[in-house]
Structure formats: structure tokens, C-alpha cells
């Protein structure tokens, strides 16, 4: 897992160091730099596989712009034409940190090629793999050795993407990615249709807080569309069965489903599947979700993240998300993101005093946030 990241000179982040857990939630007012933190990790991830072209960055969910805007720009500091990111992984030694320095020849050029002083981890792994494959053992156990490779921290780090869901795309309309799943929610139906039986049952089990949901249906043959269940633009083959509706008439399409189920299902599938990245970010997880659902979803996602060895960075503006976090668990971390008086993005981990019990007369984390105790709110208006 990525244990620590140091970011210098990336957009609003002048210099910041963040110690991460397994599930990391970032809160802060609009424009404080939450997404910039997610993107900085994305830049490091892209660099670690030598994929720094604009479309490759956009593919990871990074908002691509000309380099002069990508470097920090503050009134009191001269703009530097490079940024640095250092990543520490908890299962690697300190001297195996990933150091990435990225720069361009002319920051004002709209189309510039990033040049980097970074390790292409893919090349290293290929080289090591090539050496291993020469050994007799490799031919005996190639799958086992591949598995070991895929569990290396660099491997999951390279998979990193920022998911930012669009309800329209979840409904199967207007997606632009061939990825399964895409960063805006593309191809959820294909992801689920490729689930093992065990994964599918897990998905249904974990959807228990969707009160009306009886079953998830994948219309592999396209028959439901022909029967008129989906007369619109949607290409999705995802359907739901409602437990309250008449048995012979209880199926409806993703396009006709409420927004909440689509978002919830996507997140559950993302955390359950073995094919989805092990390390990723979710921007604005609360979109389309009822506050109580936010809480329940977080509880489930944290359990799944631990079980399926996923690491995630999450941003939210909904206080109810916080009520699903157990801050006494060191794997679950809450951070406030704010701009200091110079405009620099600052990230602060919120840790509870050891003797605090957030129950009984104590306020819930959501209330603490709304009442200003956690910060992460706009000031004075």
C-alpha cells in the first residue's frame, strides 16, 4: 500500500506530506485542493509506468491543462517549472521510495511533453521477470510467480485511477471509455456480467440496504430490450427486479432506475471485483445518495476494502459519509483539506483524542463537521 506521499509544487499544493491508511477520506470547502491531491497521486502513478501523454493522464481522471497551470503559482513565490512527488510504500524499504520529478521544456507551451526523472517501474518489473523466467522454477509455476508480481506495490500503484461517476453514463448513455469499468461509470453491466458466482452473491448481499432491490439482472441476449424494457438511448444491459412490484411485471432497466442504486452498485462492484484496480480514488462519493445511505455504504466499502485488499482515496462534501468511519481504526483516516493564508493547500489528518467515545452524549462526526469543529467549511459567510 501507499503509506506516504510528499507533493511539491503541484497546482495548489506548494509542499505537503500525507500519511495514508487503507481508506482515506478528504473533506474541505470547494476549491481547497482535494482533487489536486488525488491528481498528484495520479501523476505519480502515470509516471511510474511512463505514460505521461495528455490522453494517458486524462484516462486516469486527471484534469489536463498546460504545464504552467499544473505547477504551483502563488503571489509570494516564483513559479518553478517542475514538481516533485515522493511515494513510500509500506511493504518496501525506505530506500525503495519512488521519487518522481516532472518538468517540461517550456511551461507556457500548450502542447508540451513531460520529461521526467522517475523510475519506470514497468521496465524494472519486466527486467526482473525476464531474469526469473530463465529459471527452471518459472516454467513449473508461471501463474504463481505472476500472482506474486501482481501483488507488488508498484503494480497496484500503476493501476490507480480517479473515478468520478456520471449518472447518465451509469445509465448506459454517452460513455466514452472502453475500460471496464470506466472512470465515469462506463461498462458497469459488463463488469457485473463477468463476475464469478461468488462475486455476484457478494454484490447482492452487500446491496441489502437498497430496500426495494430483489435481484440484479444482466440481459445477455438482449431480450428485455426487445420486450420494451428499455426503449431509450441506453446501451446498458443492466436491469433490476423490484421486490414490491407485481412478480410478472417487476423488471426495469438501468435507465429507468433511481440514481442511487447505480452509484451504490458501481462502488460495491469496484470494491468486490478482483479485476478492478487495487488502488484508486473516488471524487465526490456522495453524489445522488441519501445521507443514511452514505453512512451505510461507507461501512460496507471499508469492510470490502479490508477483505479484498483495496486502498482508496475518497473526497466528499456530505457529512453523513463521516458517520460511516471508525476513526479509532488506524486503517481508516479522515483528512481536512484547506488553503492557508498564502493559498497553499494544507492537508491535516484528524485524529480523535484517545479517550473519546463518539456515542451517547457525544456528537456524531457529521454534526462535528457541520458545527465547525472539524474545519473543512467555508469561512464567514
Amino acid at each position: 500500500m501507499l503509506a506516504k506521499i510528499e507533493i511539491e509544487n503541484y497546482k495548489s499544493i506548494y509542499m505537503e506530506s500525507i500519511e495514508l491508511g487503507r481508506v482515506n477520506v478528504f473533506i474541505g470547502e470547494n476549491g481547497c485542493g482535494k482533487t489536486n491531491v488525488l491528481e498528484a497521486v495520479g501523476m505519480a502513478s502515470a509516471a511510474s509506468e511512463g505514460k505521461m501523454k495528455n490522453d494517458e493522464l486524462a484516462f486516469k481522471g486527471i484534469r489536463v491543462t498546460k504545464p504552467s497551470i499544473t505547477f504551483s503559482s502563488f503571489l509570494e513565490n516564483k513559479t518553478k517549472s517542475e514538481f516533485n512527488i515522493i511515494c513510500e510504500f509500506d511493504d518496501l524499504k525506505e530506500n525503495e521510495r519512488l521519487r518522481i520529478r516532472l518538468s517540461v521544456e517550456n511551461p507556457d507551451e500548450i502542447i508540451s511533453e513531460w520529461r521526467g526523472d522517475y523510475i519506470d517501474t514497468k521496465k524494472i518489473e519486466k527486467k526482473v521477470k525476464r531474469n526469473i523466467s530463465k529459471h527452471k522454477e518459472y516454467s513449473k509455476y508461471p501463474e504463481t510467480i505472476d500472482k506474486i508480481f501482481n501483488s507488488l506495490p508498484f503494480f497496484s500503484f500503476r493501476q490507480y485511477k480517479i473515478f468520478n461517476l456520471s449518472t447518465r453514463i451509469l445509465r448506459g448513455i454517452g460513455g466514452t471509455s472502453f475500460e471496464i469499468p470506466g472512470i465515469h461509470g462506463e461498462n458497469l453491466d459488463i463488469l457485473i456480467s463477468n463476475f464469478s458466482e461468488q462475486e455476484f452473491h457478494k454484490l447482492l448481499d452487500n446491496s441489502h440496504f437498497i430496500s426495494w432491490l430483489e435481484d440484479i439482472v444482466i440481459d445477455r441476449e438482449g431480450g428485455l430490450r426487445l420486450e420494451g424494457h428499455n426503449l431509450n438511448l441506453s446501451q446498458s444491459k443492466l436491469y433490476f427486479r423490484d421486490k414490491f412490484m407485481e412478480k410478472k411485471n417487476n423488471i426495469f432497466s438501468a435507465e429507468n432506475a433511481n440514481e442511487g442504486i447505480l452509484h451504490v452498485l458501481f462502488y460495491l462492484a469496484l470494491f468486490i471485483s478482483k479485476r478492478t484496480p487495487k488502488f484508486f480514488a473516488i471524487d465526490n462519493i456522495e453524489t445522488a445518495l441519501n445521507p443514511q445511505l452514505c453512512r451505510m455504504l461507507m461501512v460496507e466499502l471499508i469492510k470490502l476494502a479490508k477483505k479484498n485488499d483495496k486502498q482508496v482515496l475518497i473526497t466528499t462534501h456530505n457529512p453523513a459519509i463521516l458517520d460511516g468511519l471508525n476513526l479509532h481504526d488506524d486503517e481508516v483516516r479522515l483528512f481536512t483539506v484547506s488553503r492557508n493564508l498564502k493559498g497553499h493547500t494544507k492537508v491535516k489528518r484528524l485524529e480523535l483524542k484517545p479517550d473519546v467515545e463518539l456515542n451517547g452524549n457525544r456528537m456524531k462526526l457529521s454534526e462535528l463537521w457541520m458545527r465547525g469543529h472539524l474545519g473543512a467549511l467555508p469561512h464567514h459567510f
Partner: protein
Amino acid sequence: MKFGIIAEGWSDVAVLENIMIGLELIDNLEDVLPIRPERNVDESDLSTMRAADFSNWTLVKKECVDRINIQDFLLDGNVLKEERKMIVHIDTAECGEIGYEVDRPIKDKNYCLGLRNNVIEKIKEWLDDEYIDDMYFAVAIEETEAWIHALYETKDTSKSASPKETFRRYLSKNKITVKSNNAFQRAKMLSDNFTKINNKKVKGCLENNLSLKLFVNSLPVSKHI
């Protein structure tokens, strides 16, 4: 360190913030939580409130007597690994009013100190001596405008009986204008030099107003934020 502020109005909060920035007690507004003026009210409540409900010494007294929001800040909501202190601000202009009832000392060289001490004693009485170890008292004689005025003129600004009016006349006479009608923003801009209070030149303003100086000296010394 996180500071909770109880003040008569938003303009007072603005001045206190600038002073804390200048003293390097905060470098991020996340470390300030204005408790009064109330921000935990919704638009339904706001529609039923009168103008006097927003900026008044009675509100400061109410907070100190009720101590609900003080307990909320220093105890119930104080769950994070951080130190918390509170600043209670009040003007002395109305200290003779019923319910405030603080005696004004004789107007001699000890007037400011004497009045400030009397007001602090009154606040402690309202607090029933609870939480006082976690509090700093920002007693402005007679109004906070006298503190801001101290940034502009080298004279004892605490001698004016009506600092707000005196300062308004000063600004008008010197054609100093601020492009905002918002009380908080106006005070923030007019008192911006407090953010440089560690600068020798600006520090001199403390000599122009004793109640300001006493407040500033009562605050903790910054330990590298």
C-alpha cells in the same frame, strides 16, 4: 491551536483574526471557529431574528451565562488531538446599561486598566468562574474601532467616548474608502495591518491603545505554527 471566538459582531471577529494572524497564532482560518455571532442558525431562524440579535453585548453575556456553546467548543466538540482556547470579546461602551453594570473608574491614567479589569471580573461572574483558564478576554475600550484607529494615528485612541464615530470621521477626512458594504470584510480590510503586528512599525500601534496592548500581551506566544 484552535480558537473559539465569542464576539459582539462579525467586524470584531475580523479584527481578532487579523491580530492572531499577526501574532502567528494561526496561519489558517481553519483554526478559528466563530461561536458568536451565531453561524449555526438556518435561514428559517434568521428570518425571525431582529437586527439587535446579531451584534450586541447582551449576546456575549448570554453565551457566558448559558455556557452551552462554550461547553460545546471546549468539551463536547473537543474530540480531536488539538489544543483549544477561547477568546471572549466585548466593548465597554454600554457597560453602564442594566444587566452589564460595570462601574467606570475615575478617568485618570489607570482608567483603561481599571475598566478592563472590572469588565473581566464581570465576565468571570457571568461564567460562574467556569472555563476561565481556557479563555482570553478581548475588552475593547470603548469600541473595537478604537483598536483599528490605533493603526492609523499616533495618538491615544482609547480616550474617545465614541470611537466608531471618531474613526468614521477620520476615514472620511482622509478619504480612505473600502470597497465593501459587508461589516466583516470592511473590518478585515481596515484592520489588515494587524496581520503585520510583529513588524516593528506596526507594533507601535499598541502604544496608541492600552486595551489593545493588554489584550495582545495576554495572548500566548506563538510556538511555530
